[in-house]
């Protein structure tokens, strides 16, 4: 009993933990393996896989202890507020990561490509208009049309934003059935989105190597797709927690964090749809 009283009156400082150093070992293995892979050493992928396995072990262990601490009531009040601030600033850092790639697209379209069009000495006859694979790559190419799969994907992601919010309302009203259905629908829509993206990639009439258009297209949509994948994994974890009886109307930071993340992924997609596919 006294432990719980302690937990609610003072800030919970966790005991020494081995998870961070395990995570560092994982990242060292992943990075070294990747370097070996790029240097075409056969062991590279295996070292990377080992690192990834250690990373998964670390994530499961670390998040596992946080969830157990949370269920024991150690992470309430001020600690809960810290977690919320932490997630907000993490999402801000993610926004800035995407801003770098959006910035590259903006610069290429508005400055680099038009300037190449004006450089008559270098590439006579190059128009310098968007979309382009650049003056040096002459293979014919068709840009991705906005009003096919991408538009459907926009609807899918927007709907998934609605279903996760509907699940959140269920949580606030204490209706467990609505939470579960809302989350399962969200995961389903997320998977559908990913499936359509994979289909789009498979059918795409250009590759990563198709000049600046291919580079910006695949890097932006690819990193977005990775974030959707991560979001689906996070949604799956909290769905499991809902089935295990976690979260209440008053206390559900894990749920809130994942839904913020999902909305962030949604907003990035909207910007992608407008500036990568449409305009």
């Amino acid at each position, binding site marked *: 009993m006294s*432990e719980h009283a*302690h937990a609610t009156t*003072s*800030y919970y*400082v*966790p*005991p*020494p*933990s*081995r*998870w*961070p*150093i395990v*995570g*560092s070992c994982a*990242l060292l293995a992943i*990075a070294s393996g*990747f*370097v070996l892979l*790029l*240097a075409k050493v056969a062991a590279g992928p295996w070292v990377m896989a080992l690192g990834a396995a250690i990373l998964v072990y670390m994530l499961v262990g*670390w998040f596992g202890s946080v969830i157990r*601490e949370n269920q*024991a009531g*150690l992470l309430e009040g*001020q600690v809960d507020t*810290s977690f919320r*601030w*932490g997630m907000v*600033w993490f999402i*801000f*850092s993610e926004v*800035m*990561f995407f*801003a*770098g*790639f959006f*910035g*590259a697209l903006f*610069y*290429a379209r508005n400055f*680099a490509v038009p*300037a*190449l069009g004006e450089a008559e000495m*270098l590439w006579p006859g190059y128009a310098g208009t968007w979309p382009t*694979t*650049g*003056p*040096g*790559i002459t293979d014919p190419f068709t840009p991705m049309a906005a009003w096919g799969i991408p538009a459907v994907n926009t609807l899918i992601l927007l709907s998934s934003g609605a279903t996760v919010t509907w699940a959140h309302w269920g949580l606030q009203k204490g209706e467990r059935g609505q939470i579960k259905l809302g989350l399962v629908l969200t995961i389903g829509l997320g998977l559908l989105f990913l499936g359509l993206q994979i289909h789009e990639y498979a059918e795409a009439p250009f*590759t*990563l*190597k198709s*000049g*600046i*258009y291919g*580079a*910006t297209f*695949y*890097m932006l949509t690819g990193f977005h797709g990775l974030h959707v994948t991560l979001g689906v994994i996070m949604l799956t974890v909290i769905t499991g927690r809902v089935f295990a009886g976690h979260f209440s109307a008053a206390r559900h930071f894990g749920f809130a964090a994942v839904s913020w993340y999902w909305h962030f992924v949604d907003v990035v997609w909207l910007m992608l749809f407008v500036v990568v596919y449409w305009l």
Partner: protein
Amino acid sequence: MDIALAPHAHDEHPHGLMRWLTTTNHKDIGTLYLWFSLSMFLFAGALAMVIRAELFQPGLQLVDPMQFNRLTSMHGLIMIFGAIMPAFVGFANWQVPLMIGAPDMAFPRLNNWSFWLLPVAATLLLASFFVPGGALAAGWTMYPPLFIQGGIAYDMTILAVHVLGLSSIMGAINIITTILNLRAPGMTLMKMPLFVWTWLITAYLLVAVMPVLASVITMLLTDRHFGTHFFNAAGGGDPVMFQHIFWFFGHPEVYIMILPAFGIISTIIPTFARKKLFGYTSMVYAVASIALLSFIVWAHHMFTTGMPVAGQLFFMYSTMLIAIPTGVKVFNWVATIWRGSITFETPMLFAITVVCLFTIGGFSGLVLALVPVDIQLQDTYYVVAHFHYVLFSGAAMSIMGGVYYWLPKWTGHRYDETLGKWHFWLTTIAFNLTFFPMHFLGLAGMPRRIPDYALQFADFNMIASLGGFVLGAAQLLFVYVVVKCIRGGEPAGERPWDGADTLEWTLPSPPPYHSFTTPPKID
């Protein structure tokens, strides 16, 4: 590890190596950061010694040009990411919870990871010296197309910088959350010590720009290996685009390395002038203005790469605007000293010197902001002189001053004042001997990053090299003073500086393992 251990069980911590590997204590982690920073400072300093030895005389003596490029590139990269940034995070770890009356950092385990990612990055960078082709030789700024053409070490550098960025972002989120959420009751934002304010704003800059660096070095990686054309004109890309995105990170990065130094100076000067900091509110607004302006000045690093005149004018004037909040800070420091009861212990000597020498660095920065002048001075030793006045006599000497200031609190012992002053004078004189002549060299046209030079530059280079060797040797004295202080000395008591009034001085020296288990009340 398990919550079955109960909340109080962790007052007992493991001993030996496991204490440091698994610690969740902000003081332990701060100590780790500071030792890491010191070791990287000595390593990157050793690289600089070889640079100065090579430049002692004209001609090629010690290293071949490729090796020289490796030395300058790695010196810059390691000093920035390995020495200066971790030192300030070490200060933040030790001081922020103590100064705001918090029990620890907001995310203690994440804090541990932020530190233990640094050795991962250091391993990659140090190992890169031994791979085929040798370490990074394309400059710490990693400009394509040269960077694209490098060997395995360049991939290792990219991944190391990714890991460093991860560490910085997590560290910054931790610091922001700690400051926003863990202040003692009654400590409003405008009652926070200025050091805490500078770190809040620095952490904001880190979260805003480290991800941008991550994105641009990812583009480098895919250009190198996966056939993208971000920085290749044949594919519609542009190498200058790299510079734009890089410096969008790079200029705020400069302030990431100087704002915490401002915080340390703003703590030391009032203590030894025995007066309150003059113009506290204006200091806070000045720091915030510097941070915001840092986002709209990046292209002053690339005036020679070509841009419209309107762009040159915009970036010139926005850069010069920064002089205004910076001037506010310098005048406030001077006004704090004015008519104070001043004593000149080692931290105060460092602080006053930083104010003077940083101002020189600021002025040479203003000179470089002028487009026509910058076009003449781009890539000369004038630029090298400028950023060493800012980064060595601004950032590094603030770190040294801060170490002397807080060592009694951290160790419980007073440091050796005589040796401290020796270190100060040797450092200050040798620093000026090394870097002041570089202004003349640059104005006379000596290019940077070149291992050989024309005969007329010989005298100043010899002076700079001699100064450099003394400067390097003086830092060994610093290590000796620090180690001596840790091992023993006159007991410091709670408050060895009678003019100090922040919260850490209300605790015993060294502070207990858990500092404020019940938050102090601030009125």
